[in-house]
């Protein structure tokens, strides 16, 4: 700590200005997080204060208490939603990473027929907002019979165009010489993929993990459309239905605030876990 302080003191004027400016900007950017936290601990009367206060004046845990009381009265236990969310998340993350990296490896490093077509289709599908294709998707999912299974949660987000889009850019940065050298040393496709492509695209993989986590964790579409059984729905759906059920309810606002914080915390944790990987490997990677 002292060493760090000394380093800061020995910074040049330019660095000092830089640090000052960034601190101000960073403080501005973390305002929403502080807001979410302080909002969750506001007692009833402060939630309806006008003009709204930013910081909580008299923090209380009542919001969480009433949320848990409400949850324990539900037909499906809270833990079941949580379990579903965790299963869906881990399956989706693992499969998205493997499937998209494999596809990106071939797309970035090999020439074959229809490659240009596939690449342009990826870019095209990126532009299509997912809401607008939800009905055809529903028809397909129920046609294959994936309703009320975990596959119904995982498969629709499996072929993520965003992930492949980002990964193709990254994998094509890996020098061809490296791959040639591995080939000469007798590595096959699997070897090249597992030993070279996967480790070297770690920063991009970390980025898409964060993005995938965000979308899957907050996704209510699959639960609403593809799952008719309450026991197969995810935590995001539960919180969302709780919130929309309470929207016009004065007494529900405190539960909504607490639930907002609870659904946000995993996002923050995953972010903190992965971001170090993203930034570290980005700087130290041997890619040129």
């Amino acid at each position: 700590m002292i060493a760090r302080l000394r380093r800061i003191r020995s910074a040049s004027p330019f660095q000092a200005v830089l640090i000052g400016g960034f601190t101000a900007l960073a403080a501005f950017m973390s305002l929403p997080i502080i807001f979410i936290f302080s909002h969750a601990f506001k007692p009833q009367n402060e939630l309806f204060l006008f003009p709204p206060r930013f910081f909580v004046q008299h923090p209380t845990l009542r919001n969480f208490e009433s949320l848990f009381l409400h949850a324990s009265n539900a037909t499906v236990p809270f833990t079941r939603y949580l379990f579903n969310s965790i299963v869906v998340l881990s399956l989706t993350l693992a499969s998205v990473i493997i499937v998209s990296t494999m596809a990106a490896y071939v797309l970035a490093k090999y020439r074959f027929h229809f490659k240009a077509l596939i690449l342009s289709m990826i870019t095209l599908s990126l532009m299509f907002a997912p809401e607008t294709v939800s009905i055809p998707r529903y028809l397909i999912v129920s046609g294959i019979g994936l309703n009320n299974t975990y596959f119904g949660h995982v498969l629709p987000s499996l072929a993520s165009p965003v992930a492949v889009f980002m990964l193709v850019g990254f994998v094509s940065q890996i020098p061809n010489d490296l791959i040639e050298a591995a080939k000469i040393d007798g590595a096959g496709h699997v070897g090249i993929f597992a030993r070279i492509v996967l480790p070297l695209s770690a920063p991009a993989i970390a980025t898409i993990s964060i993005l995938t986590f965000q979308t899957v964790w907050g996704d209510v579409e699959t639960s609403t459309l593809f799952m008719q059984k309450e026991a197969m729905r995810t935590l995001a759906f539960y919180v969302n239905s709780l919130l929309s059920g309470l929207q016009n309810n004065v007494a529900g606002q405190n539960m909504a605030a607490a639930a907002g914080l609870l659904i946000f915390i995993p996002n923050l944790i995953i972010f903190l876990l992965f971001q170090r990987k993203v930034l570290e490997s980005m700087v130290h990677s041997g890619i040129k």
Partner: protein
Amino acid sequence: MSRSAPYRRKAMEHHAKRYGIGMLFMLPWMIGFSAFVAVPVGWSMFMSLHKVAVVPGGFKYDWIGLQNYRDAFLKDNVFPIELITYFQQMLLMVPVIVIFALLISLLLNQKFPGRFVYRALFFLPVIFATGQVLSELFSQGAGDIPFLDQYNLEPLVRQYVGGELAKTVMEVLGRIVLILWYSGVQILIFIAGFQTVSPSIYEAVRIDGASPWDSFWKITLPASMPFVSLNMLYTIIDLFTFPLNPVLKHIRDNMFKVDTGYGYASALAWIYFAFIFALIAIVTGLFSRSMSKRRGRA
């Protein structure tokens, strides 16, 4: 001839094997992509040319050709206006976001104590910019500039700036929140892009007497041109598929109206999509031209 035939067959086999394994890598993604992205998109094209009605046991499609598209411009008095307004806003936002991200990432690329912490902080908005948290915040917020009221900035600005100017400042501030939040991934891409330039080049031009200013224009910027175009694309896509944007909301509303229905909503989506596509085509066209020119000169 007879000697080369088995040789050629072996070569063919070899090729097929290599090719086949490469294709196997693609296969899972291709299947998923066609089932859950390509087919639904095609299906929505099909629906946009029909009047879709929900009947017991499924959908009923009546061919009406381009009627839905015509209605979107001639009958609908909300859609064209919202489309144009949103486009105007976005044309302003996209360059600002990319330039802002470039500046921030340049500064973050400097050597100063604690830069890792700041890099993480600027990447942080990624977790708001998607879905749940954002809509949660928006639903708690007020109107168009949701956070400024809650942070109680307006009296503060009014106190220090005053009068009519305060309104403009507030508008800019409202944009700044969005700009800051939407530049997380872009900053990351830029920083990663800067790492691809080898430090020895900078050293060489420094020895040749170039100032940091020169080396930015002559080396850093040209080298990060592909990343600028990547970021442009990413920003456009990010802003246009933003879940709370008014055009998408209009499309969603139409989806569940009885008299318009899925067919009309799909047509609106395709018009919207065509506009974005035109924009992206222009951007990529410009960038590839400028890049090929540079390559030609080198």
